[in-house]
């Protein structure tokens, strides 16, 4: 560190410039991962927050909730299994609702489930819907932001049914649309695929169970049903995989860019100092002393830049517009900070290799 710190102090501009690049790259990493997280929860918080570990789907549905139809009888069969802690049926569909007495239209996702079951929404305002009474719904609080309030009536144009908002819940969205909860009967009546059949059906069965029991339960299912994990069901939400994939790829590239920018910078500087390193080696500096000096510089620089980026990131979140889907957990910040640090040190390996190759004898007989 003797050399590292003194050189950083001496060549301020040079290290300031590379530091600036590092700060920007790290800032971008944090902001994009915040956005990725925010979008993921904006997209699928209803599934992420659901108290379920697995979902039973119709085999031909390709894991898509809106295509899956399962007979209600199957729910009792699954509940009877000793591996299953709890299970509940869920009906899902996406519709456009009209606000009665206004031209306002809103796209929502309907979740239909037992109002007292494990999937029932946590009501934060008003009351829960009734399992028997028709026409009551509990809506995600994001509907409040677009002007809905308790007691408002919503009409489904397709079926002509009218629903009243009796309560609000929070953090419930699916495929970027707010979720509206109702009882299963109501859902069966507005679902065009079901209403003429009169069958008692649902879309999926959410299951709480140990991951160890996965194989057992899967094998016990009839052929036309399949079992998927919560994570797999997230991946099958329309657009979820693509959205997250794009952002994840950007983050991965930023890590690669950070490594290369630092690698090139320190490599060029090391090449420039070949003669100097030769003299130092002749004086008796071994390669590990010089290596520590370079890695020390990279670490100091990286730690300072990452710290500045983290501070800037939290500063940026303060001035972000209200509805911006942005979520950054401390855990993730720490994880990515450490990863950036590791990547930075990896970037300096090229310089270390170069330094190891420098021969002390270059110090002798050289006019420069």
């Amino acid at each position, binding site marked *: 560190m*003797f*050399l590292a710190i*003194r*050189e950083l*102090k*001496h*060549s301020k501009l040079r290290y300031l410039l590379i530091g600036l690049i590092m700060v920007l790259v790290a800032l971008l990493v944090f902001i994009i991962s915040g956005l990725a997280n925010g979008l993921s929860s904006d997209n699928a918080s209803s599934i992420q927050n659901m108290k379920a570990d697995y979902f039973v789907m119709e085999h031909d549905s390709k894991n898509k909730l809106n295509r899956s139809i399962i007979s209600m009888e199957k729910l009792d069969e699954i509940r009877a299994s000793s591996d299953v802690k709890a299970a509940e049926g869920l009906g899902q569909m996406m519709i456009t609702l009209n606000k009665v007495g206004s031209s306002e239209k809103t796209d929502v996702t309907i979740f239909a489930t037992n109002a007292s079951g494990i999937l029932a929404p946590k009501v934060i305002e008003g009351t829960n819907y009734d399992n028997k009474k028709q026409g009551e719904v509990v809506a995600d609080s994001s509907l409040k932001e677009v002007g809905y309030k308790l007691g408002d009536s919503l009409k489904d144009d397709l079926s002509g049914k009218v629903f009243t908002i009796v309560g609000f819940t929070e953090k419930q969205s699916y495929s970027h649309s707010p979720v509206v909860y109702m009882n299963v009967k109501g859902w069966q009546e507005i679902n065009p695929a079901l209403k003429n059949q009169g069958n008692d059906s649902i879309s999926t069965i959410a299951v709480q169970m140990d991951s160890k029991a996965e194989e057992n339960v899967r094998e016990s299912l009839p052929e036309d049903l399949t079992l998927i994990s919560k994570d797999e069901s997230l991946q099958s939400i329309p657009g979820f995989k693509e959205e997250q994939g794009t952002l994840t790829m950007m983050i991965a590239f930023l890590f690669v860019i950070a490594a290369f920018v630092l690698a090139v910078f320190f490599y060029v500087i090391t090449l420039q100092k070949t*003669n*100097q390193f030769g*003299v*130092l*080696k*002749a*004086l*008796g*500096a*071994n390669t590990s*002393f010089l290596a520590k000096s370079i890695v020390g510089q990279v670490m100091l620089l990286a730690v300072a830049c990452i710290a500045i980026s983290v501070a800037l990131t939290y500063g940026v979140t303060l001035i972000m517009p209200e509805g911006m889907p942005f979520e950054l957990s401390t855990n993730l910040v720490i994880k990515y900070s450490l990863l950036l640090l590791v990547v930075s040190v990896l970037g300096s390996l090229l310089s270390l290799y170069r330094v190891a190759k420098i021969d*002390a*004898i270059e*110090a*002798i*007989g*050289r*006019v*420069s």
Partner: protein
Amino acid sequence: MMGDKLLFENVSKIYGEGDNKVTALDNISLNVRAGEFVAIVGPSGSGKSTFLSIAGALLSPSKGRLLLNDEDITSLSPKKLTRVRLEKIGFVFQSSNLVPYLTVRDQLLLISELIGKRDKKTMKKADELLSHLGLGHRADHLPEALSGGERQRVAIARSLMNDPEIILADEPTASLDSKRGRDVVEMLAHEVKSRNKAAIMVTHDERMLDLCDRVVNITDGKVFG
């Protein structure tokens, strides 16, 4: 013989193999005693640099033995040679051999840092050496603020920092005018005498030779004189 700080015994250095074989040093024997200041002269390509590299434990000889302070260093590993250079040899190189971002005092303290004990004592030693060489007022300056002569004086101070057995100077006057060059060599000679060190200076500057105890001529890898 006791009292020899550096002893070359039938040392040869051969580069390459077969048809490309080049004999840089051919069976050289030479000794340098404590308090002796030896000049090595010779045309370019004569093997002066190779000689200095071997004397400075930067290069191992192909044949023969090399004794530093009665210790055989001929077949030490590169790692051990680095340690020998650090603890027993002082170097004064040509012009740009100071680390550009270290102050004059830090140039000296770097040696203590490398040895692994940088403390108040070495700090005091560095300041003493600097004021002794007339650089006390320059201790906090960077090399870029110094004149060529001052830089070489810093290099001399640095070479004394590890209290070496022998000081090796590689054309220390190469970038200096004759007046300043002479000052630097006089200072080096004075330090060698007063501290009873051995010193070898490779030079092509014949005007400096009267300051040396002995002049050794190397031509085509052979020693004369």
